[in-house]
């Protein structure tokens, strides 16, 4: 799975990527699977699966709650991989896992990424692992052919942007706010300039996440980027019918419309 080609194809179809986030096995195993498949069938382009961690320090209240609930219900990494294996049979949509570093380390990076490869996980986001500290993880991810997606924050200076962009093998995850995940009233005014700066250091795809919760915000944010990640707003929806409508609505709003779109 090559994310660069995947985004190129989307662009040829005049589309931008919609990446909804689901906390693994939340609110239950069956619901999680139903919701993920519904999203895939309703127009989502990549599914991000959150592997719950006891201490999710980059997450706001919604994802904290979903993580805690999943853990309380007996979540294990092994159960998650079994569930993903079941989903993989039903859809070809790319899967990426988002989790914190400790579960991967403890499970064993080698075993973890081997499981990713076997069960059809295509990419990995670890928000508390910066490129300077990715040694043991990176080796195993590369071996398993799992793309590594790194985050750029509004505070990241240009020199670090270059480093992060050069290390990334999936897409650049542009964090739209200084803060944790969860909804915001507005998307920040500095976002266009920030994405422009990233574009100047890399040709790799750029997706925007954190604080994007409505179709309108997604439309506004994605104007400058190749895709949008929606977490807390999606996690709150546990009814597949409502989810289907939401995904369709967001997706239809983020198509490339005019002919003035500039791409690198």
């Amino acid at each position, binding site marked *: 799975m090559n994310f660069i080609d995947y985004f190129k194809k989307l662009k040829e179809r005049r589309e931008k990527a919609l990446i909804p986030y689901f906390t693994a096995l939340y609110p239950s195993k069956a619901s999680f699977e139903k919701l993920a498949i519904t999203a895939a069938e309703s127009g989502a382009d990549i599914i991000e699966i959150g592997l719950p*961690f*006891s*201490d*999710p*320090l*980059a997450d*706001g209240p919604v994802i*904290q709650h979903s993580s*805690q609930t999943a*853990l309380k219900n007996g979540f*294990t*990494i092994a159960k998650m991989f079994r569930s993903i294996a079941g989903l993989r049979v039903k859809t070809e949509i790319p899967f990426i896992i988002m989790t*914190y*570093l*400790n*579960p*991967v*380390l*403890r*499970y064993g990076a080698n075993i973890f990424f081997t499981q990713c490869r076997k069960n059809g996980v295509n990419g990995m986001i670890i*928000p*508390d*692992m*910066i490129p*300077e*500290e990715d040694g043991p993880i990176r080796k195993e991810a590369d071996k398993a052919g799992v793309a590594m997606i*790194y*985050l*750029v*924050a*509004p*505070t*990241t*200076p240009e020199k*670090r942007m270059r480093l*992060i962009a050069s290390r990334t093998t999936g897409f650049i995850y542009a*964090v739209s706010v*200084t*803060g*944790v995940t969860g909804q915001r009233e507005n998307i920040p005014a500095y976002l266009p300039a920030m994405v422009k700066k990233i574009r100047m250091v890399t040709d790799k795809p750029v997706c925007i996440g954190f604080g994007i919760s409505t179709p309108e915000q997604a439309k506004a944010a994605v104007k400058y980027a190749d895709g949008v990640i929606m977490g807390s707003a999606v996690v709150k929806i546990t009814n597949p019918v409502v989810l289907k409508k939401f995904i369709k609505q967001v997706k239809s709003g983020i198509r490339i419309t005019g002919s003035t779109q500039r791409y690198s």
Partner: protein
Amino acid sequence: MNYPDKNGKFGPYGGRFVPETIIPALDELAEAYASSKKDAKFHAELSSLLENYAGRPTPLYFAKNLSNKHRAKIYLKREDLLHTGAHKINNCLGQALIAKKMGKRRIIAETGAGQHGVASATVAALLGMECVVYMGTTDMERQAPNVLRMRLLGAEVRPVKTGTMTLKDAINEAIRDWITNIKTTHYLIGSAVGPHPYPVMVRDFQSVIGIETKKQIRKSEGRMPDYVLACVGGGSNSIGMFYPLLNEKSVRLIGVEAGGRGIGTKLHAATLSKGAPGVLHGSYSYLLQDKDGQVINTHSVSAGLDYPGVGPEHSYLKDTKRVKYATVTDDEALTAFGELTRTEGIIPALESSHAIAYIGKIAPKCGKNTVIIVCLSGRGDKDIAIINEKLKIEN
């Protein structure tokens, strides 16, 4: 010592495992700290505050009654006599001066027992800064006097109701606040934990404990001690005491962790004794975790030791065997609390009572000339409600 390296690694431990948003602030802090270290004016200002405001040097008190009881020479390093009642003020003054230099007007802090929260609120009042302290609701209840003190000092105490509602979750919330307010805020971490440069910076600010102790014991005994004991939660008083003594090879250094109801049970906070290396709160260090890497709930009668992680330098000192790490149960700590109170007229914090309790474990092996130093890291006024409750249960 040739560690930590430039990436903040103590052997394999330490480093920076935090979201990208924070990294530039850590670079800024590391730079400000490095330049402060070379700045004579900074040292003069800090020394003056430590002496005239905090009350340094603290005495190294020869505890005659306790010595008679245990048939050894027992000295107590009286950090409990410092302003605000614990060693935490040493680090708070240092970091607050650096924060001021960086132009940050707002400080945030986490607290377990409340001692670091009180010290943070105190320096914020002194230097005219805004202060927000995160504290688990379990801890707010068991350390209520300190909550009141922080509020009187003008700090906002924000209750943390997530997870175990103790120190671990208070740190999570403080980090989330920092990610959100990174440009205006300094996160004043109270223990030798967190991403680089915190572990080394906190250790340096706390090293005044060990440096004074060395001078004082040389003066009173003409030699280095045989044993030095200190309690270990995150590990700031212990690293401050141990670090200047690491090169004194004859000195046996013992860190005492919270054994809770016993390390054979699930109810303890003995990270180094029972944990395995992992990542929590920004650094790689020993951690109490399950086989999936989820952090395990801890228990200790002492809020300040009730933490599943530990500073990375302690992990390194454990692996290199320079420091021995042991445990003491809740009950043993409570007994030691009562013992010190009645024999010496000193009410120790429940945290420090763990170190006191360990005297009983080594004393039988000691002669009457064996010199034992215990870091009495804080006073126990904050704990009297807990003690009272425990006594009621027992009577």
